[in-house]
């Protein structure tokens, strides 16, 4: 069953186009990474899915239209915007009490159990916690909600690599099961490779790449080409070429591995390699639109 089904999502802020006709199909039980440079339209896309901004186009989330059925929809959707949105004045126990008081399917014991594995004190205010702790708190609240769709918008922004790794580990171990769906945006792609089931690059309001992680390895190959085979390799239409230590490194999409093995050393690219290849061609990543 489709969890998110979108056609022609369009949103502009004044004269800047944030979403330029996006089609999206996310099945239940997937973990989709929506990846793009700052200002590519990731956040706008998520906010449309959550019914937080008005937009044009067709959109169904869990069978509901977020524009008109937002109040019912939020019962089944959990959401972490970046770390800065937990109110700074709230105390940890107040946050738990409040969510338990308003959310119909919040498992308080689960949140408490998760928090007890951290050093977060119940009487602390959010403003007294470190960025990493705030994220842990937010994650504890969100994981204790029995939601069908979890939306994470740059959840690990500003965290060091240890916290980021820990964040995704907790998510996979303690939360994800095949009946839930997760959509995550980030521009820190390193630690996501083993987490995602689907990958989507978004740039300037458009989706520029879509790929299931099952196909990732068979589709994309990095080749460190022997200097004398370069012309031959270039003829196979690589999607990207760069120089490193005097060798040319070419990235191919959908070219037979057997054929490429003759031309040089093969390696499976990381998401970051692909990101640079696909978006590096496009003009300046920073001159995009408002998030």
């Amino acid at each position, binding site marked *: 069953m489709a969890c998110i089904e979108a056609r022609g999502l369009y949103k502009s802020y004044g004269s800047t186009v944030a979403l330029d006709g996006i089609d999206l199909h996310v099945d239940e039980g997937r973990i989709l990474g929506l990846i793009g440079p700052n200002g590519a339209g990731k956040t706008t896309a998520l906010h449309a899915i*959550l019914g937080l901004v008005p937009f044009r186009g067709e959109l169904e989330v869990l069978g509901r239209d977020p524009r008109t059925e937002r109040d019912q929809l939020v019962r089944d959707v959990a959401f972490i915007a970046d770390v800065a949105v937990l*109110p700074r004045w709230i105390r940890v126990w107040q946050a738990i009490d409040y969510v338990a008081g*308003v959310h119909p399917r919040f498992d308080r014991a689960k949140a408490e159990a998760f928090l007890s594995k951290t050093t977060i004190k119940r009487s602390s205010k959010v403003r007294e916690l470190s960025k990493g702790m705030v994220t842990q708190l937010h994650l504890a609240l969100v994981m204790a909600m029995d939601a069908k769709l979890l939306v994470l918008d740059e959840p690990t922004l500003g965290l060091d690599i240890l916290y980021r790794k820990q964040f995704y580990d907790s998510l996979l171990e303690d939360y994800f099961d095949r009946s839930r769906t997760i959509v995550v945006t980030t521009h820190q792609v390193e630690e996501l490779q083993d987490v995602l089931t689907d990958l989507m690059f978004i740039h300037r309001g458009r989706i520029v790449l879509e790929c299931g992680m099952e196909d990732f390895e068979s589709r994309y190959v990095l080749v460190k080409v022997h200097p004398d085979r370069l012309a031959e390799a270039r003829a196979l239409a690589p999607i990207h070429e760069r120089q490193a230590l005097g060798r040319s490194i070419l990235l191919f999409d959908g070219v037979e591995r057997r054929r490429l093995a003759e031309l040089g050393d093969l390696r499976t690219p990381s998401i970051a390699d692909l990101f640079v290849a696909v978006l590096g061609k496009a003009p300046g990543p920073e001159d995009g639109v408002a998030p």
Partner: protein
Amino acid sequence: MNPRPDTRQPRESKAAAENRPLYWSVRRELWENRFVTIAPLVVTAFVLLGSMIALIGLAGRVRSLPAGDPEKLQALAEPFRMAPAPIMLACLLVGAFYCLDALYGERRDRSILFWKSLPVSDVTTVLAKASIPLVVLPLIALLLSVATQVTMLLAATAGLLLSGVSPAPVWSELRFFQGLVIMLYGLTVHALWFSPIYGWLLLVSAWARRAPFLWAVLPLLSAAAVEWISVNTSYFASLLGYRLGGAMREAFVLEPGSGVDGDFSRLSQLDPLRFVSSPGLWTGLLFAAVFLAAAVWLRRRREPI
């Protein structure tokens, strides 16, 4: 990872069945805006301080009372009757400032993204916020006023008894329960009468991208100024003045010669029938409803600043 000393037994999560979004929304407003309770408390403390000073020498004044002089007797009870006024005024001001920030602050600090991720509708949120000036603050004002009067009365009685003077004249003049009814009536009347003002402030707070106070006040002043300069009338200004001060005129029988700040100490001065039949009340409530509906609509669509 240290074991935390304050680990409580997780409470049984029976919350699933009984969510009370409105109740919890009001509680979180009080958590966030602690000045809603603290500011009236501070004012109350000052009122008590002043009234304790006024009690000095009370025994002498009671002793020297010429029998059967009602005006002197009334003057004796004056501090008791005046005590609630600054407390109630403080609550009105707190309500106004609370409203100006209520829907603006959550957009400015982006916490609106957290609140909106939870199943609490915009209607519930705006109603919870509106209930602070319309229900919570009047209740606080009433509680603190009564507590102040009781404290003053007990202190006066104790002081008089210690100096060997009968407290009877003070008690007979105070008419405590009448005062309670008048306060309750006055607070209800003002909450209803001022509801469009609070609604307007909430609306501006949901709309403004910065400086909500200026947006709340300047358009009204400008409208009055334009009218005054262009056609040399002041209907709009008098309309505003009526909204600010009209509750007293519509809800109380004013003694001839006494102004709005006159003495309200007798039940016969209450005129609820005239109040509920005054068009000013109903147009005000209509405006309040429109403003609140617009605030709900804006909260639905506005994004963090």
